[in-house]
């Protein structure tokens, strides 16, 4: 006979299918019968089986006792068969699960304190994670609202020499990339540039996006109203068309439909509105743009100002695009070595580029809340271990009654999952309650796109569920591995208050150490941030920020190029503002302190060379008007500030202390002079005054050398200026009048909204403040959890040691000695934890400088404070159990044994 598979294959296949269907039918029936009570039926059937068998046996000549016994043996045990039938009837796993859930719920209800503490602990841990995840989800994970967003890339220029990895590109470079990179379906570029928009009484500076052809097409967005730019329009700025953002359309045009075709005046020209973008489209992270204008081509390869984005071709990979761009940039560098020698390109997904610097912060927060959850897990594992010691008797009893250890493990696992899920629910509630405050806090201080879309959506729900189960896995595994090996079967011993198996005790101690260490890491992080924040707060900025109002303005080209016109304008404007009631003094400055802007220039000192033999020294240059130092209350330490007399005669500069100290350490700088040299001609400037140092760029670090030029003399082109006015009344009340006075001098000069310098100073520490606040909250949570954990362990240990302590006391031990005995154990664990934590902090602390450049990681004083704080809290947490130990009544304790 041949084993031809085709011979019987068809009937066999159908038979297999049939038997599968039969199997399915059996399962469905079994599932349906999970809850039914057919046990009585089986019992009756077996009863009748036995009766018949016994009858037969008696007929065969046995005594009735023998007959019954024989029949039972033959059957193989009544209850065993019943159990087998029950398993065949129902689905054991499901049945066990229901049983376990019922039993678990009963056990958890029986120990409400334990359950509450565990659920709250897990709720806090999971809630912190759910809250941060919901932000990350909205900001980073949710697809961008553009067509096929996964293919959208951001292309940074890089500079090998300076190490800058996210630089802007020049127009010709962008054009070459666009023409040659085959991985990209399309490429476009844009730049952020504030433009002036006339509002009637003045010209307001509004953030705008200037875009190349194909910008909207690359993103795959269309105008909600009207149209985006045509390709001809984008090439040529002279076409004077503009597309409004939804925000601008609603704020300034009341969302009216007849806005198309209207004109807005900007930069002394009128622009025709051709379209309005949809509300969701707000591209810029740093300041939400108000309008879109075409970008003018700049042919210089030296001028980097473009941010480039591209859409990958269908199926093209990011790595391929990156490799391709590397080849292209190398070729460009060979052709134009002067401008492009070190210029490369880096492709990153658009979504991560848009989030910008807040990304690091978010990732740090994700790490921080993960640590908090780990602490919570350690805590819960610890509490469960303590409780399981009390439950040993029950578990031993169940093992003796026939429960397999697998079955007991299943039971305990079910309890873990129940606790974790309850914790997850609490966490979800906490997260959704705190979500709006968290989002408001972040949105106020960071420019994070899409953060407003943070909600508890199904991804957050899924994440929380998965996290809860993972959490159960973690603390269940720790708990389980510590209990495994404990012999549940030893019914006789388990009932007694033993000191607990040494394995479990070691685990409990290790958990306390781990918790403490994790808390140290978080507290040290928060401490370092707090320390830097306090340092920044207490740093005197070098000027008096209160009662000063600032207005930023942007000089149009015509004023930039014509000195007398500019000076006349400055004089008129400054005198108009100074005459306002409530204004004490007024000044003009190019780079307002603390907004981060500075201009570093080279200068010469006649007759001197730099230490390395160069001709040019470098310092930050700023341009100010007479009256600026008085207005800012920057002390003049030698000489004088600019005055009207400087408008004629020898050009002059004022320097700050650091400049004086650095460049003229052993002579009076007042008789020195410097030379500015732009390659075509040189100007000699006499130092007429030395003023106090100002924190020009930021509140941390050492002040840089600053040299001030007089705005009323020829200066390098500085189109951005700020008017500062010291007021005798609350400065914000003068915002409108100052704005109008500045505008009155020339309504065509665009000006920005006013700010008080107190606001400027606040903004300069806003982000460190938020990080400190958030990290502080989470570190506080960690500390509280660690304290609870320590308390739990100490309380348990004391309970276990009561007999021993009783003996000590009965033998005449001092109660204080007993107190010390317990505290010593706690302190030992915490000290080990602190040491481990500090060791872990040292390498991890570097990440803090990415949040706050001012942070001094591993500042010994901060770490010492953190250690002392933790030890204090630990002592408090263990004091209560220790006191209980010292108050043990020896007679009671001994009777317990």
């Amino acid at each position, binding site marked *: 006979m041949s084993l031809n598979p085709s011979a019987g294959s068809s009937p066999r296949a159908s038979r297999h299918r049939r038997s599968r269907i039969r*199997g399915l039918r*059996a399962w469905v029936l079994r599932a349906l019968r999970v809850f039914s009570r057919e046990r009585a039926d089986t019992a009756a059937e077996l009863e*009748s089986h036995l009766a018949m068998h016994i009858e037969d046996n008696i007929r065969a000549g046995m005594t009735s006792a023998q007959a019954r016994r024989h029949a039972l043996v033959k059957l193989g045990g009544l209850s065993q068969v019943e159990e087998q*039938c029950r398993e065949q009837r129902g689905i054991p796993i499901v049945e066990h699960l229901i049983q376990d859930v019922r039993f678990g719920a009963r056990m958890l209800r029986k120990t409400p304190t334990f359950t509450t503490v565990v659920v709250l602990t897990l709720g806090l841990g999971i809630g912190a994670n759910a809250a941060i995840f919901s932000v990350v989800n909205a900001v980073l994970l949710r697809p961008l609202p553009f067509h096929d967003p996964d293919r959208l890339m951001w292309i940074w220029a890089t500079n090998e020499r300076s190490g800058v990895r996210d630089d802007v590109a020049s127009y010709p470079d962008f054009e070459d990339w666009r023409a040659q990179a085959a991985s990209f379906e399309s490429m476009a570029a844009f730049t952020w540039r504030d433009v002036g928009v006339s509002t009637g009484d003045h010209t307001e500076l509004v953030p705008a996006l200037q875009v190349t052809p194909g910008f909207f097409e690359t993103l795959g967005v269309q105008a909600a109203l009207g149209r985006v730019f045509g390709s001809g329009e984008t090439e040529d700025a002279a076409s004077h068309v503009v597309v409004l953002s939804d925000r601008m359309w609603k704020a300034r045009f009341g969302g009216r439909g007849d806005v198309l075709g209207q004109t807005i005046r900007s930069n002394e020209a009128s622009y025709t509105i051709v379209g309005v973008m949809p509300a969701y489209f707000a591209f810029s992270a740093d300041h939400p743009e108000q309008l879109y204008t075409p970008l003018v081509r700049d042919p210089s390869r030296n001028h980097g100002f473009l941010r480039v984005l591209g859409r990958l071709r269908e199926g093209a990979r990011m790595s391929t695009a990156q490799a391709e761009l590397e080849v292209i940039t190398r070729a460009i560098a060979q052709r134009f070595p002067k401008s492009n020698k070190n210029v490369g390109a880096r492709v990153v997904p658009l979504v991560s580029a848009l989030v910008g610097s807040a990304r690091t912060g978010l990732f740090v927060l994700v790490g921080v809340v993960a640590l908090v959850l780990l602490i919570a897990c350690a805590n819960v594992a610890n509490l469960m271990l303590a409780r399981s010691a009390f439950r040993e008797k029950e578990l031993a009893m169940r093992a003796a009654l026939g429960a397999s250890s697998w079955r007991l493990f299943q039971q305990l696992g079910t309890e873990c999952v129940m606790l974790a899920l309850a914790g997850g629910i609490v966490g979800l509630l906490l997260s959704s309650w705190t979500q709006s405050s968290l989002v408001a806090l972040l949105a106020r201080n960071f420019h994070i796109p899409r953060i407003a879309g943070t909600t508890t959506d199904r991804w957050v729900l899924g994440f929380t569920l998965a996290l809860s189960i993972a959490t159960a896995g973690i603390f269940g595994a720790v708990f389980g591995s510590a209990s495994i090996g404990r012999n549940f079967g030893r019914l006789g011993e388990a009932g007694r208050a033993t000191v607990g198996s040494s394995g479990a005790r070691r685990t409990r101690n290790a958990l306390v150490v781990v918790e403490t260490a994790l808390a140290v890491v978080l507290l040290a992080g928060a401490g370092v941030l707090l320390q830097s924040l306090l340092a920044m707060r207490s740093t005197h900025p070098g000027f008096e920020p209160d009662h000063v109002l600032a207005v930023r303005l942007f000089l149009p080209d015509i004023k930039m190029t014509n000195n007398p016109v500019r000076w006349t304008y400055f004089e008129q404007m400054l005198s108009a503002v100074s005459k306002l009631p409530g204004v004490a003094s007024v000044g003009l400055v190019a780079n307002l302190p603390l907004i981060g802007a500075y201009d570093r220039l080279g200068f010469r000192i006649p007759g001197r060379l730099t230490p390395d033999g160069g001709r040019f020294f470098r310092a930050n240059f700023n341009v100010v008007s007479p009256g600026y130092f008085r207005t800012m209350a920057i002390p003049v330490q030698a000489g004088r500030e600019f005055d009207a007399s400087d408008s004629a005669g020898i050009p002059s500069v004022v320097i700050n202390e650091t400049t004086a100290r650095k460049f003229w350490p052993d002579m009076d700088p007042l008789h020195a002079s410097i030379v500015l040299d732009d390659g075509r001609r040189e100007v000699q400037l006499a130092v007429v005054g030395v003023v106090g140092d100002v924190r020009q760029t930021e509140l941390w670090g050492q002040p840089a050398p600053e040299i001030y030029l007089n705005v009323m003399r020829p200066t390098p082109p500085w189109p951005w200026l700020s008017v500062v006015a010291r007021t005798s009344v609350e400065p914000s009340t003068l915002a409108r009048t100052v704005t109008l006075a500045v505008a009155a001098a020339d309504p065509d000069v665009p000006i920005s909204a006013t700010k008080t310098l107190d606001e400027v100073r606040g903004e300069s520490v806003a982000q460190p403040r938020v990080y400190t606040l958030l990290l502080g909250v989470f570190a506080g949570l960690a500390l509280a959890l660690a304290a609870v954990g320590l308390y739990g362990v100490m309380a348990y240990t004391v309970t276990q040691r009561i007999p021993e302590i009783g003996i000590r006391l009965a033998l005449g031990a001092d109660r204080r000695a007993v107190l010390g005995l317990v505290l010593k154990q706690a302190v030992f664990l915490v000290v080990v934890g602190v040491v481990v934590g500090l060791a872990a902090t040292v390498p991890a602390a570097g990440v803090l400088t990415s949040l706050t450049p001012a942070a001094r990681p591993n500042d010994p004083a901060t770490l010492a404070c953190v250690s002392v704080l933790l030890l204090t809290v630990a002592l408090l947490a263990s004091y209560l159990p220790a006191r209980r130990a010292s108050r043990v009544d020896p007679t009671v304790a001994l009777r317990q044994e």
Partner: protein
Amino acid sequence: MKEQKADVWQGTLALMVLKTLETLGPMHGYGIARRIEQTSGDVLAVNYGTLYPALLKLEQEGYIRSEWGVSDNNRKAKFYSLTRAGRKQLENEAKEWERTTEIIARFLTPGESS
């Protein structure tokens, strides 16, 4: 491990149950057990208990049905009988069994190669 062995055992036992019911007509568990013991020797000698889960399974699969009735000795007992599906299943299984045993026999018979 336990599972697989039980499956093999249950498969064999199921076939014997079906065959018994075909031969004897409706029969209670005890009767089936005695019959299988008599015909198969010691397969069921150890315990009758394993029969009942097998009966349950066959019933769930729809090959047999059960109803309470009265035995020869006037005892209440649960009687099992073959369904149509059961008959067909018996036929198929028996064929399959024959074929399998034939193949196995060929393999195990020494000196003969195909």
